[in-house]
C-alpha cells in the first residue's frame, strides 16, 4: 500500500485522452499492474492507462496526476471517495459526476468541469472554462450536490440547471450564469456577465462586485443575509477563499425572480461599497 498513486504523463499528447473512471476509490483496491491496465480512451481508441502514464504506487486513496494534462479530459470524473491532485492545467470535464471525495486542480481546467456533480469538493486554483457546474447534455438538471470552488474566473453558463450544491468563483463569470437554476448557490466575487439567473426557479446568485439585474427580477429589500455570512466564513476558513471581510455583513440588495418562472430564486448584490462611499 502506498501513500499515493502517482500517474505521470509520459509525453505530450497529440490528441485528447479521456481518463474518466480512474478514481481513487477504484484504485484503492488495485495493485500497480492493475491500475496500469485500467482502460482510457485516446479519441475513439481504447488504451491502457499504463500506455500513457508512468504508474507509481498502489492501493491508495490518493491519486496524483503530473505532466501536461491540458488534453486529458475527465480527470477525477466519477470520484466517490479519496483525493485527486492534478499538478497543472486539466482538460475538459474535470471532476464531472463526482459523488464524493476531493479533486484539487492546481492549475486551470477546461470546459464542463464539475458537470452533473452530486457530491464532494472540486477545487480549482486557476480558472475554469465554460459550463462550469453545468448539466450533462440533454439532462433536465445539473449539479445536485457538493462544492466547487474556483480561485480564478469562469466562462459562460456557470451553474446552469443547478439543483443543489455550491459554486464559488473568486474571479468573474461570463454570461448566463445560473441559467435555469432549480436550487443551490452560486457565489461570484468578480464581475458577472449578462443575463444571470435567467429562468431560475429557486436558487441563489450572490454577486459581490455587482451585476446587471435582469428585468424579470424585482427588488425586495436591502438587508444582511445571515446565510451569506455563514457561507463566506466557511469558505474563508476551509479554503482560504479570498472573500473580503466586508462582504460578510453586507448589506445586500435582494432581488426575487425569475418572474417568468416560480419566482422563488434570488440575486443578492453586495452594496457595501455604496455604504462605504456614503461614509
Amino acid at each position, binding site marked *: 500500500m502506498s501513500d499515493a498513486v502517482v500517474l505521470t504523463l509520459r509525453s505530450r499528447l497529440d490528441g485528447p485522452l479521456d481518463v474518466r473512471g480512474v478514481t481513487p476509490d477504484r484504485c484503492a483496491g488495485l495493485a500497480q499492474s492493475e491500475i496500469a491496465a485500467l482502460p482510457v480512451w485516446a479519441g475513439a481508441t481504447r488504451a491502457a492507462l499504463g500506455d500513457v502514464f508512468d504508474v507509481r504506487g498502489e492501493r491508495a486513496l490518493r491519486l496524483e496526476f503530473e505532466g501536461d494534462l491540458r488534453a486529458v479530459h475527465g480527470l477525477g470524473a466519477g470520484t466517490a471517495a479519496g483525493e485527486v491532485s492534478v499538478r497543472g492545467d486539466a482538460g475538459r470535464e474535470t471532476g464531472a459526476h463526482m459523488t464524493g471525495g476531493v479533486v484539487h486542480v492546481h492549475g486551470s481546467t477546461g470546459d464542463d468541469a464539475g458537470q452533473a456533480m452530486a457530491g464532494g469538493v472540486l477545487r480549482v486554483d486557476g480558472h475554469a472554462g465554460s459550463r462550469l457546474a453545468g448539466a450533462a447534455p440533454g439532462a433536465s438538471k445539473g449539479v445536485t450536490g457538493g462544492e466547487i470552488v474556483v480561485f480564478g474566473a469562469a466562462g459562460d453558463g456557470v451553474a446552469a440547471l443547478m439543483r443543489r450544491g455550491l459554486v464559488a468563483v473568486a474571479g468573474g463569470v461570463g454570461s448566463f450564469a445560473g441559467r435555469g437554476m432549480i436550487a443551490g*448557490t452560486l457565489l461570484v466575487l468578480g464581475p458577472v456577465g449578462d443575463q444571470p439567473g435567467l429562468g431560475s426557479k429557486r436558487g441563489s446568485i450572490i454577486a459581490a462586485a455587482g451585476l446587471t439585474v435582469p428585468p424579470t427580477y424585482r427588488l425586495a429589500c436591502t438587508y444582511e*443575509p*445571515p*446565510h451569506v455570512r*455563514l*457561507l463566506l466564513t466557511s469558505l474563508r476558513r476551509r479554503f482560504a477563499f479570498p472573500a473580503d471581510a466586508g462582504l460578510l455583513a453586507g448589506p445586500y440588495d435582494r432581488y426575487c425572480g425569475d418572474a417568468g418562472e416560480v419566482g422563488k430564486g434570488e440575486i443578492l448584490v453586495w452594496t457595501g461599497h455604496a455604504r462605504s462611499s456614503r461614509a
Partner: protein
Amino acid sequence: MSAGLKAPPYVRYCRRVEIRGVFIEDTFAEAFGMRAARVVITARTIKWARAAATKLTGFATSVIACKCEAAIERELTPDETPDARPGVSALLFTMDSESLGKRLTERIGQTVLTCPTASCFDGLPDAPDRLPAARALRTFGDRFQISKVVNGERYWRVPVMEGECLLQESFGMQKKGVGGGNFLILAEDVTSALAAAEAAVEAIDGTPGVILPFPGGVVRSGSKVGSRGYKGMIASTNDAYCPTLRPLTASALPDGVNSVLEIVLDGLSPDAIRSAMRAGIDAACRTGVRAISAGNYGGKLGPHHFHLREIMGAAS
C-alpha cells in the same frame, strides 16, 4: 472522623481529610446518564446572543418540573462561531432522546427565532447521533423558507420581519451526558455558605462541557427521593440536611452547621464533571465552611459515582 461530626450511615470512618480546615466527607455524588445537546447562538452583538441564550435556558433547573436542564456554558468569540459573530454556547440535558429533540424545537423556536439578529447552530458537530430539531421550525416560514447546505450541513432561512433567521437543521446528541453531579457546602451560617457557593460557581464557570442549571449555579432546596408525608410526590425536601429540622429528623449535619447550599452540575462527560467538582470544591473550602459533602441514594440509582476524596486527590 473527628468528634462532633455526625456521619450519615453511608459514610465510612477513615482518616481525616481536610482542605484548608474544611472536612471532606468520605462520600460520593450519585449522578445519572442524560442526553445532551450544545446550542450555539450568535447575534450581531454579544448582548443579543446573550439575550437569546438567557431565554433559551430559562426555567430549566431540573427535569423534575422543567422537562430539561439547561444553562449557558460560556461566551464565544467570533473566531469560535460558525458565522464569525459573537456567540454563546448553552447546554441542554434531558432524560431521553425524544424529549431532547422536543425541548430543542420548543426552546429554539420561542427564543432564537424571536430574537433580533440571532442565529442558531449545533455545538456538537462530531456527535454521530443527530436530532433534526429545527426542521419543524422551518414551517414558520409558510413555504417561503429556503434551505441551504453549507459544508454538508443543512440550514433553514426563515423569513421574519427583521430580515431572516438562520437555523441549523440538526443538532448532535451526546448520549453519555451526566446529570446530577453535586456537592454540598456545610457552613456555619448563610453568609459563609453563600460566599463559598459563589466562589465555587466562579471557579467552575467556563469549564468546557459543564453547566450549573440552578439559579446562580446554586441550590438551597436539595431534595430526597419521594416524600414521607405525601404519597405521589417525586421529591421532597432533604430533611437530613435542613438545619431547622436537626432535632426532628435523622440529621446529617455536623455540630455548628447552620446553613447548607448545594452545587449541582450537568456535564457532557464524567471527566468534565470531575474536573468541575475539583475546582468548585477547592474554591468552596474557605472560612466559615465546616465540611463538604455530597448527595446520593446509596449508590443504587445512578450509575455515576463521584467520590469526593478521589476527586480531590485524597482517597481514603
